[in-house]
């Protein structure tokens, strides 16, 4: 076959290839930057990535975005450290050309990558990073669909007050999250519970022996222990507080929803019983059609109820797909405009981003509930909501004496 004949045969194919929308359109890349290895809370990152992937699959099954372009997720591990987070974000923004990045869990990492988001003009979403300053800086490319710490601390201060606990001890780690918890709880006690006494201890996140700190708390004789550890430190506090006889004699409130994960009982066994903990999702909650569809699909695939991080990761990818379609563009400025102008179906309500005062800037907040385990190996689906009172499904119970 001569070269001329071969060209004549191949040319039509080449023309079809270049003009067919299905073949020519590039996928739209969304970055998932989340902790997938220690010292980050790797379990949280795994759930977030799982939810985000299911979100992308759903969008693609519906035909993609922007007239048929597929969503492609690029997952990066930030290990819960600002330096790895910054490197990961840089890669997502420059090499992968991600249009937005979701999955941020650790406040310290989120704080580090925000500046890069502004520099590269790539929207970044906090999936579970809650430090106040994240949205308080009023940055153009920072969005959050998670609670903020002032709200968390005000809620647990109300809970402490309403339970009649006079002396509360807060032990937390030396991260943006931990330091923020201390500052916000001090403010909340000063304004909402002036009669209450608060003791705070901040420890280095790498420390594994917390016995001296917990002994100091025990000897202070608190009425309630606020556990502000994230990931492994949360487990270390719980275990070691039990061993020195602090918990469950003294009730403990864990600052986030880690106990709802299956690993909780594997790690703590009976030492995890009687812990109260803050959640943002409860299996009895009424979800949106989108949230309900996700829950069913998740349960069918993983044989367990979804975890909040997965729900939020899923919802963020979905709302980004909606915003891209509304913007009719994958350019970051168009995307930001669409995010600010639109209303998006989340997992339990309509998400919208307004530019409010203080930390309520491009911020959407899910509900916060206090739940409690009252027996060892209790499934999360069976825990009762014990606070706030208007939503409660059961009464908070003190632990029986050991």
């Amino acid at each position, binding site marked *: 076959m001569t070269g001329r004949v071969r060209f004549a045969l191949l040319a039509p194919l080449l023309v079809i290839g270049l003009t067919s929308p299905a073949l020519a359109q590039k996928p739209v890349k969304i970055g998932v930057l989340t902790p*997938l*290895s*220690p*010292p980050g809370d*790797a*379990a949280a990152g*795994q759930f977030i990535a799982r939810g985000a992937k299911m979100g992308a699959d759903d969008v693609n099954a519906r035909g993609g975005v922007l007239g048929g372009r597929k969503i492609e997720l690029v997952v990066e591990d930030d290990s819960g450290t600002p330096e790895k987070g910054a490197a990961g974000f840089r890669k997502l923004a420059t090499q992968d050309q991600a249009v937005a990045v979701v999955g941020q869990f650790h406040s310290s990492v989120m704080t580090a990558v925000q500046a890069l988001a502004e520099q590269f003009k790539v929207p970044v979403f906090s999936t579970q990073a809650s430090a106040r300053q994240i949205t308080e800086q009023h940055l153009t490319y920072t969005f959050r669909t998670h609670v903020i710490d002032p709200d968390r601390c005000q809620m647990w201060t109300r809970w402490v007050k309403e339970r009649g606990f006079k002396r509360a001890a807060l032990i937390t780690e030396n991260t943006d999250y931990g330091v923020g918890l201390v500052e916000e709880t001090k403010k909340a006690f000063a304004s909402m519970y002036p009669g209450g006494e608060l003791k705070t*201890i*901040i*420890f*280095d996140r*790498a*420390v*594994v*022996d917390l*016995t*001296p*700190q917990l*002994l*100091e708390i025990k*000897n202070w004789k608190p009425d309630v222990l606020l556990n502000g550890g994230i*990931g*492994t430190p949360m*487990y*270390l506090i719980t*275990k*070691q507080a*039990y*061993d*020195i*006889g602090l918990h469950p004699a003294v009730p403990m409130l864990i600052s986030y929803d880690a106990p709802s994960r299956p*690993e909780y009982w*594997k*790690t*703590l*066994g009976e030492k995890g019983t009687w812990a109260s903990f803050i959640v943002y999702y409860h299996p009895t909650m009424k979800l949106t059609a989108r949230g309900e569809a996700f829950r069913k699909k998740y349960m069918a695939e993983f044989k367990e109820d979804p975890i909040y991080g997965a729900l939020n990761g899923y919802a963020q990818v979905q709302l980004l797909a909606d915003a891209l379609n509304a913007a009719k563009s994958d350019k970051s400025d168009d995307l930001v405009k669409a995010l600010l102008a639109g209303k998006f179906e989340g997992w339990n309500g309509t998400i919208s981003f307004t530019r409010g005062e203080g930390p309520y800037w491009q911020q959407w907040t899910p509900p916060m509930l206090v739940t409690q385990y009252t027996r060892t190996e209790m499934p999360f689906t069976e825990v009762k909501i014990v606070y706030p009172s208007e939503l409660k499904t059961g009464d908070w119970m003190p632990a029986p004496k050991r």
Partner: protein
Amino acid sequence: MLLSQYVLSGVVIGVIYSLMALGITFIYSIMKMINWGMGEFYMIGSYVQYALIVSLFGPRQWYLALPVAMAAVFLLGLVVQRLLLRPMFVGGIERRDEYATVITIALMVLFRNLAIVLGGPNQYAPPDYARPVTLGTLPISGNRFVALISTLVLLGLFYLVIKRTWVGRALRGAAQNRVGIQTAGIDVLRLDMLAFGVGVALAAAAGALLAPDFLVYPENGAISTFKGFEIIVIGGLGSILGSIVGGVLLGVIEALGSVFVSSAYKDLYGFLLLIALLVFRPTGLFGERERSV
């Protein structure tokens, strides 16, 4: 009450950490190199212990899992020494210290990442070895009490082997003069292998004993390595007695600082002691100035 609790708590954890320090200083005494990957052998020890308890021995027979975990890490240490560290003693390498540093840091990264790949990034906890107990005024986890007793037994065994056996005498000889010991017909390279294996097995014992309290995860060896190095600088590099006394002293200093200042800065007090020693007694409490002929 609080003071006695803190001091007891400091002594307990100091004794357990001295096992780690002993491993570091023992390897240094014989091979004249620092093993920067010591924490990863601690980590491997904790993983092996967890795997053995969960899949083979069950929670009640942790004491059977402990020697097996130590033996497994001992064998791993022999392999690492034979393949990666021995060449620096036989190949006429000029920058031996740098070679050892690079190799052991590379091992640290390798083992940590292997742990993530093989075991996943999450933490595990073996079932408790014993119920919580009260030691004097100190309420303490049963695991830590078991770890304390086991550490004392291991330290005693180590002392007996070093002082009373032929191998122990050979090791002490190698620690004093590597060239001299060869004139007595002893294969010093074989002693190196043995010393490295024993040193990392001691770290593995610490990891296995502390696994229920400090959990099992890829980075769990970091803080114990950090404490181990602190202890050997306080006690004196190369001194076995120094590693034990240094461990207890570090624990007590941290405890006293926690009582009289704040427990939030617990790790700072050991550093202050370390800096003071470096200023006034740079060789540590039981260390000696290096003599060269």
